[in-house]
């Protein structure tokens, strides 16, 4: 999929672990792992909003389009 999720990059910049993010946004570790590994098929606006709030970033920081 040409949409890449840069969650690991943003987490590293914020020096935050996946467990901490999971506690902050109320998502399971399993779901966050799916998102981090780029296996997710879609992301809800509510999830994106919660992650952006928790990491103090913009959706563009998390998602990137890499064309073929």
């Amino acid at each position, binding site marked *: 999929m040409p949409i890449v999720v840069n969650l690991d990059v943003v987490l590293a910049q914020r020096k935050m672990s996946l467990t901490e993010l999971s506690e902050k946004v109320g998502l399971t570790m399993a*779901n966050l792992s799916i*998102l981090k590994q780029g296996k*997710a*098929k*879609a*992301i809800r606006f509510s999830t994106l909003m919660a992650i952006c709030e928790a990491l103090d970033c913009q959706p563009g920081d998390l998602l990137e389009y890499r064309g073929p």
Partner: protein
Amino acid sequence: MTTNNTPLSIKIIYYLTQFVFWVTLLGALLAVFFLGAGTLGLFKETTDTSLDIPLRLELEETGTMTAYGKTYQVEIRDAVGTFEFSGLPRRVTTVIMFGALGFLALIISVIWFFRKFIINVKQGLYFTDGNIGYLKKMSYCLLGLWIYILIISNISAGFFMSTLEFDTVQFKGSKSESGPLLFGALFIWVLSHIFSKGVKLQQEQDLTI
């Protein structure tokens, strides 16, 4: 995804399917046992046997009906009934019984796949690859039954029409009521494709964060 909130109707269908499956299997095992024993000649005391065959035949027979003080003309055009053939040689009944076993095997297969399907449904596993497989196999078996009945009814029609002779009844042909089987097979086949789409939607839903 599993759930304990199984609807009552599904529970009833589940227990009914289990009952029908085991009773049919037991009946089939008994049939195989008696057929095997008969083939091996364990019932030597009788050389000839009788056989009950359910048939639906087109015929021509006229009669009367008396009701309310009047007499009406009645014409029988087709009839369903069990024909008892007495004094058949053992090898004839054995061949027919082997044919009936194939029919029984297909019926048991349909019930078996439906049983597996309903077990999954009872556990809350609706859209799974396994269920798609069970539905497809059920449709193949039903299609097989339809073809089987079609062939047997045509063969038996040709045979019985040329051999049956009654004093007052004139036989014209044989009918088979296997149309609903074909419809059922096609319906279940379409259902399997709907389930296939359901599996894709379920996977997308599971991977939506």
